[in-house]
């Protein structure tokens, strides 16, 4: 049996083990891995997350048991000190000797510490291992114990340096990033994008100092400042050095492998060093005269080395290494790909810059304008994946290349084609080198149907995750080619669509959420399926939100809309927008008594804001005594039916729109549906009630009412479509009854009637057939369903104030009469508003 020894258990060393273990032939090898850190390999890319959770375990790439299960002997806390090429043996720090047939050096790199005078002082750190972070955290605590305005500097404004800047800010120190170059992230950004990024970072409190050469670290024993020469200095209490990396190549030097002039162990495209039995991968390997400090090339090297050792000799390293990166830096998207910037004689650039929004986008195209050479994005990198793919696959540019970064000015279409247009060889996930072909194949040939399943099968999306949207598109499109649609299961707990669940509840007579979960679901539910089930129970049994209160969305649970500061708003029903002076005064009195902010809503009623949780039943008790009832402004249910004043007053009015609006609002009030719905009634075609922007609308015309459905204002405005023309009031109501019931039964969750109608196969024509011509033979059932709603309506606020157990829910503390002292209001135009969010 041959022995493979891996020196180094970092990300690349681990990847080598993972790829090796996946090969059947690996059983014929004895595998030993040495790591000098006290723990098994962890995810260094996400190291800064350690500051947030202090959980080293969550960064772990695989638990220690994984190595045992795969017959890999993992020796941590042990450094390999010597290689004896003649005898093919190594010795370790504890003086043990091991012999190898193949040796894989994955020793990685160490932070480069520039030879600055005073760099050995206390309070100067590097940023590389979990131990470094722990030491920094301890030191930061010491500083904070002494002073409240401690400062930390980061030497180096590269990617890692900026991350470190955020990390020290999170430790409670004032961060200062000091960079020698005149711009941030000098390898990835041009100076204009650096300016944009600098503005954004300074806004969140990270101070940036560019073009500063540090001469000396000041302080007696411990650091107190940095001296930049010429009387320029910065007082700091701590310094984190993040000035690049140096390969950990000592082992290569001592056993006389071929080395690069500035370090690194020279390898060929098979990852072999000058000794064919010794391989080097990752940041210690010098390939094409370069050290690659990114994960993706390191992983590719691991793959090549595994293949070479397993004698798949044809697998070699790509000649050109893609150094494109996309990352979220402190919440700011930053990406660069291909050639990010270049002299003007090498290509032409298209630049979009918007400093008010912190946006910068640049693409570089060839002099003939035909190919994409590279680009930079700061602030918004949503289109990175597709641009990166265009670059990698040399796809032709659209006629107006600027549309790639500023969007298409035409019919809202995107300048990009579909992800399906990419060649099969296009690498979609560069961390794991998964091609478009592999993703599609995993769906079409292997039967995987979700992104999760594809991720498991191909490993795509499991690295940085940047390719997720594209993989999702490919999965969806591939499913389509199979004639399947994307499964509309609502969440991990139910493998059903809303319509399927609706039928199950109805047919099986399921009574509550727990029963539903036990009978057709799995697990313990979540914030997606609970409110959806609540909506179904309400639609079938017309039960109020009070019965199963803990499966309701928060607003439904407390029968009020939660507002910015955790207080609630109160909205009584004002059917049709008709309100008497007496009611207005009552509302005014109550609002004044409880110091509520009042405003007229878009739906012709009055919203009262700023009620604390415990005040809700008190306020409602008084409102109900004055004859009001709940307006269900909190529910996925009927909001309002807006009306114009109609023929009772208006000289143009064709019919009584107000009376009709009141009648229809009272008919549909309280009905729970997949989403909220609104109505409108206009007394003539001037359409003052804007009925055609509502889910249902009636407009009086000569000879009857026109009935419209599926309209919407809001984010995606859509004019309602004509369902019936010149019908009498009874018929108009009947058609809308059926339309609403059909929608409630069949719509996906949280889908307004407009979106539902848009997707309904056959559209309005089909709908007319169902509700007017009874093409499905269901109108009797729909009519009966609606009549049941109308007959069983009750005001849920009345139910709440009259039932002691429900009233009890409205206390802030279970164990104290005190109220929430975290709520602060400020005054606003003689009323009040919540204090601004910080």
């Amino acid at each position, binding site marked *: 049996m041959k022995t493979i020894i891996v020196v180094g258990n970092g990300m690349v060393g681990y990847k080598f083990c993972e790829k090796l273990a996946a090969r059947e032939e690996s059983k014929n090898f004895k595998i030993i891995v040495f790591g000098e850190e006290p723990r098994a390999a962890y995810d260094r890319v996400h190291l800064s997350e350690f500051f*947030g*959770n202090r*959980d080293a375990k*969550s960064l772990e790439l695989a638990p220690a048991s994984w190595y045992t299960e795969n017959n890999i002997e993992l020796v941590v806390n042990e450094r390999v000190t010597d290689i004896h090429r003649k005898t093919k043996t190594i010795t370790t720090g504890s003086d043990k000797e091991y012999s190898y047939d193949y040796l894989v050096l994955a020793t990685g790199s160490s932070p480069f510490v520039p030879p600055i005078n005073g760099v050995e002082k206390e309070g100067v750190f590097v940023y590389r291992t979990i131990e470094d972070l722990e030491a920094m955290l301890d030191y930061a605590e010491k500083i904070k114990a002494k002073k409240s305005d401690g400062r930390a500097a980061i030497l180096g404004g590269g990617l890692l340096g900026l991350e470190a800047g955020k990390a020290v800010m999170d430790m409670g120190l004032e961060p200062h990033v000091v960079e020698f170059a005149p711009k941030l992230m000098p390898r990835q950004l041009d100076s204009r994008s650096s300016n944009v990024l600098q503005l954004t970072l300074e806004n969140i409190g990270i101070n940036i100092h560019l073009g500063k050469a540090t001469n000396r670290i000041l302080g007696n024993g411990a650091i107190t400042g940095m001296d930049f020469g010429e009387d320029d200095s910065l007082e700091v209490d701590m310094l984190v050095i993040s000035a690049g990396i140096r390969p950990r190549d000592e082992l290569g030097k001592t056993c006389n492998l071929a080395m690069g002039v500035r370090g690194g162990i020279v390898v060929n495209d098979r990852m072999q060093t000058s000794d064919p039995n010794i391989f080097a991968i990752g940041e210690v390997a010098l390939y094409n005269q370069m050290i690659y400090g990114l994960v993706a090339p390191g992983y590719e090297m691991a793959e090549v080395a595994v293949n070479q050792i397993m004698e798949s000799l044809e697998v070699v390293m790509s000649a050109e290494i893609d150094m494109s990166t996309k990352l979220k830096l402190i*919440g700011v998207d930053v990406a660069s790909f291909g050639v990010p910037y270049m002299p003007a004689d090498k290509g032409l650039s298209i630049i979009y810059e918007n400093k008010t929004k912190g946006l910068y986008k640049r693409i570089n195209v060839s002099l003939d304008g035909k190919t994409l050479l590279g680009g930079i994005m700061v602030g918004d990198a949503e289109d990175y994946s597709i641009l990166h793919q265009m670059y990698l696959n040399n796809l032709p540019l659209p006629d107006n290349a600027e549309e790639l970064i500023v969007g298409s000015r035409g019919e809202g279409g995107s300048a990009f084609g579909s992800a399906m247009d990419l060649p099969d060889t296009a690498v979609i996930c560069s961390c794991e080198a998964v091609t478009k072909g592999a993703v599609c194949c995993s769906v079409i040939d292997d039967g995987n149907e979700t992104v999760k399943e594809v991720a498991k099968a191909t490993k795509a999306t499991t690295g940085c995750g940047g390719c997720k949207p594209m993989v999702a598109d490919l999965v969806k499109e591939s499913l389509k080619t199979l004639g399947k649609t994307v499964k509309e299961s609502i969440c*991990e*707990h139910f493998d059903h669509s809303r319509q399927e669940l609706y039928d199950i509840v109805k047919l099986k007579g399921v009574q509550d959420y*727990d029963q539903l*979960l036990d009978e057709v679901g799995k*697990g*313990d*539910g*979540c*914030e997606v*399926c*609970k*409110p959806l089930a609540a909506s179904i129970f309400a639609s079938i049994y017309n039960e109020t939100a009070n019965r199963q*209160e*803990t*499966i*309701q*969305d*928060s*607003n439904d*649970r*407390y029968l009020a809309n*939660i507002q*910015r*500061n*955790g207080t609630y708003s109160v909205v009584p029903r004002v059917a049709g927008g008709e309100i008497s002076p007496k009611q207005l005064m009552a509302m005014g009195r109550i609002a004044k008594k409880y110091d509520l902010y009042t405003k007229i809503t878009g739906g012709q009623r009055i919203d009262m804001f700023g009620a604390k*949780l415990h005040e809700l039943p008190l306020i409602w008790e008084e409102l109900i005594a004055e004859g009001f009832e709940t307006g269900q402004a909190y529910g996925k249910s009927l909001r309002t039916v807006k009306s114009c004043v109609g023929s009772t007053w208006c000289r143009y009015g064709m019919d009584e729109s107000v009376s009709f609006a009141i009648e229809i609002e009272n008919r549909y009030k309280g009905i729970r549906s997949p989403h909220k719905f609104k109505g409108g009634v206009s007394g003539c075609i001037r359409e003052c009630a804007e009925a055609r922007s509502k889910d249902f609308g009636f407009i009086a015309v000569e000879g009857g009412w026109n009935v419209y459905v599926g309209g919407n204002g809001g984010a995606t405005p859509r004019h309602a479509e004509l369902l019936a023309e010149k019908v009498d009031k009874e018929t108009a109501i009947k058609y809308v009854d059926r339309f609403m019931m059909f929608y409630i039964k069949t719509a996906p969750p949280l889908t307004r009637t407009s979106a539902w109608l848009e997707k309904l196969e056959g559209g309005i024509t089909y709908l007319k057939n169902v509700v007017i011509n009874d093409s499905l033979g269901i109108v009797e059932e729909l009519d009966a369903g609606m009549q049941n709603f109308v007959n069983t309506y009750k005001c849920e606020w009345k139910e709440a104030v009259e039932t002691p157990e429900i009233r*009890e*829910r409205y206390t*802030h*503390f*279970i*164990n*104290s009469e*005190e109220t*929430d*002292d*975290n*709520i*602060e209001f400020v005054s606003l135009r003689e009323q009040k508003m919540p204090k601004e*969010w*910080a």
Partner: protein
Amino acid sequence: MIANLSTYESVKTDSVKVWFKAGPASKFPKNGGACIKYKDKQIAVFNFTRQATWYACQNLCPHKMEMVLSRGMIGEENMQPKVACPLHKNTFSLKTGENLNGTLDAIATYPIKVEDGFVFVGFSE
């Protein structure tokens, strides 16, 4: 008093100094939460009936610093019990406190036990 994140730090069971009697178990809604007060702290207590488990965490959502988590919906994701903030549906693990659907700070969690029909939450001070 305006809430401060630093008021809340997770307590491990072995560092509990005070088991605070928060109230009778029957006062907490099934599969839901309620808020209790301990000194200057607001603690959300969840009665996860389906799992026959109780959880306690800070009531303060670290996103917008509002005292609302006890009014959130609870559930489970890959076996991890969680609460969804009622304001913006940020979800947090009830076990570790970590933000499951984003990069917010983790929330503090507290040991909890039920004895003789009463709920006790563990504090280190």
